[in-house]
């Protein structure tokens, strides 16, 4: 315990106030506002009074229904279904819903309806992006870290070069890659054509709904992997060299040393890297905003992009906030689940 003269409550208050004031004003209050606003119909500029609307925003955002349609078999055995729009329009409960997808099974059709199909699409896109980019980026980063750590001459130079895209603005990177992905002239297609000996068709990377998201995944992994590489390097360097020496004396092959020394030694680092990469992936915005504006056909619309579209460009603050709150709950849940998963794996070992 420190002596009384060193107990500096008032001084600590003085020193801490500017920072705490900033954090409270621009982090705590907006966070509380985010939650409160979702229960209202707040617009940025609106002559109307703000009203409490309960959970209406959440219903509008997350509302899902499955509709079952029985087909009408025509005389030639062909099964037809009523037009979905006709059905939803005529039913008061289904009226606000739009079709998201359908599955036909013999003479029955199940239609998935959503209040806000664009959000659902964005959510799916974001999850898809994360599922692709997290393993790609983390794997690339681990590979680069091992390469840099292999004791090559000039390893510092390699490290610096691999890391360099990280410090560059994502806007700049997205602009460059928009050229690289160009269908007719882009270097990506040129390189693919050169590798396949002129075979294969040119891909319209950003213009095709099927390839737009993978294109963004490749670019994002390229831009970000250097960061995770450095974190992995720090983890690798924290593994005592004695462990490798001991494994050599025990006769372990390089692969065995990797499996039994490197991977266990990196387990905490891997967990950390996967969690931060996942969180970052779910915040995907800049690349989309610069390169595709959510298109084509909403194929690259993401949760954050959608939140900004609704909340800022449409000035529907309440609804945009609802999207961001859902986003926060999502990443918090994911982070906790991943932590648990890695903690259990570590405990089982």
């Amino acid at each position, binding site marked *: *315990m420190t002596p009384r003269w060193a107990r500096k409550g008032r001084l600590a208050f003085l020193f801490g106030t500017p920072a705490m004031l900033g954090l409270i004003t621009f982090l705590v209050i907006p966070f509380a506002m985010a939650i409160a606003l979702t229960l209202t119909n707040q617009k940025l500029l609106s002559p109307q009074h703000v009203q409490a609307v309960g959970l209406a925003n959440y219903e509008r955002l997350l509302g899902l229904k499955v509709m079952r349609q029985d087909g009408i078999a025509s005389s030639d055995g062909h099964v037809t279904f009523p037009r979905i729009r006709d059905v939803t329009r005529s039913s008061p409960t289904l009226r606000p819903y739009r079709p998201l997808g359908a599955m036909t099974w013999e003479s029955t059709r199940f239609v998935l309806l959503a209040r806000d199909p664009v959000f659902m699409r964005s959510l799916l896109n974001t999850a898809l992006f994360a599922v692709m980019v997290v393993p790609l980026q983390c794997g690339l980063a681990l590979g680069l870290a091992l390469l840099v750590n292999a004791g090559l001459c000039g390893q510092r130079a390699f490290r610096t070069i691999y890391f360099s895209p990280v410090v560059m603005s994502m806007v700049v990177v997205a602009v460059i890659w928009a050229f690289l992905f160009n269908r007719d002239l882009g270097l990506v297609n040129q390189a693919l054509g050169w590798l396949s000996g002129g075979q294969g068709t040119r891909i319209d990377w950003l213009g095709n709904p099927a390839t737009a998201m993978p294109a963004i995944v490749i670019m994002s992994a390229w831009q970000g992997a250097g960061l995770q590489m450095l974190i992995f390097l720090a983890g690798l360097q924290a593994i005592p060299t004695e462990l490798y020496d001991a494994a050599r004396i025990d006769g372990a092959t390089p692969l065995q040393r990797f499996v039994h020394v490197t991977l266990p030694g990196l387990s905490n680092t891997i967990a950390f890297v996967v969690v931060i990469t996942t969180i970052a992936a779910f915040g995907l915005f800049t690349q989309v905003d610069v390169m595709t504006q959510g298109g084509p056909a909403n194929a690259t619309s993401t949760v954050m992009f959608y939140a900004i579209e609704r909340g800022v460009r449409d000035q529907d603050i309440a609804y945009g906030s609802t999207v961001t709150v859902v986003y926060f709950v999502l990443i918090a849940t994911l982070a906790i689940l991943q932590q648990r998963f890695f903690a259990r794996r570590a405990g089982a070992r």
Partner: protein
Amino acid sequence: MPSQVELNDVRKGFGDRQIIKGIDLAIQPSEFIVLVGPSGCGKSTLLRMIAGLESVDAGEIRFDGVVVNDRTPAERNVGMVFQSYALYPHMTVAENVGFALKLARIDPHERQRRVDAVLESLQLSALRDARPSQLSGGQRQRVAIGRSIVRNPAVFLFDEPLSNLDTALRVQMRLEISRLHNRLRNTVVYVTHDQVEAMTLADRIVVLEAGTVQQIGAPLELYERPANRFVAGFLGSPQMGFLPAQALGLNGNALAVRIAASGQVLAFPHHGAHAGAVTIGIRPEDCTLCAPEDGHFAGAVLQVERLGSDTFAFVESTGTEPVAVRVGAGHTVAAGHAVGITFDPARAHLFASDGVTLPRLAA
């Protein structure tokens, strides 16, 4: 002006654990006091309380009669040398020494004059622009001392200052600190776990154990008249030997004591009536080796340490810890030999079952 320092029933705990359990101590101006004890005894905490770096839970610390419990270290006007030296790595030697003067807004000319004087007196002038990382251990030690004397502190505090130095340097710095004290005559409180430092530097030694004072006194007084078994065992190297025994009461003018290991009864001429279990304590230099059948007790030599100037034999008997015996440097005793030990009961110590020394009668 050197200060008088007084501690009245000073107490401190961390959570439930009592570290300092009520210490009374009066330090005279210009006195060199050494706080000594095993690690964890509370000696560093006590020093930091005197410095003003730790709070005092109860009791008073007075400097020249004034209670200073709530004063800052600077207000108490103490100088302190830390175990790690705590030299600021980003400052030169001169800046380190002059930092306190700079904080006190002493004008630059005066500051430089005083820093130069201190550096001169510690033979550091040539290193004035060096950084701490460029100095040897002994030089860092001197800079740390210089930093603490530049303000002419009323009380000078050392926290195990020599523990990071090698043996030769330690002896040299011990002499320098002693010379410095003779020159400056500050009041010094010095913490160490090294009994040689304590014995050689102190005017008075304070032996601490488990947060309480075991004994306060001049070095030789503690060595020759330890107040209890702990002090007796703590000072002296090799340690005092201890023999379990039974006091049988007065026999004529002497106390009859039976050694448990041999059953022999010895007469202790300087002790009064006592009965029950006791421990006999004998210094290595007070023991003599002899044939097993001639000794007050007998045992086997466990180990022989030859230090050149002295040789110590460690003898184990039934039911005793090894007892150290000083023999001539050329003595041929070897491990495994069966030997006897004799000693003069007049030079031996007796401790009651609670560890307290049985009072000696005036001769």
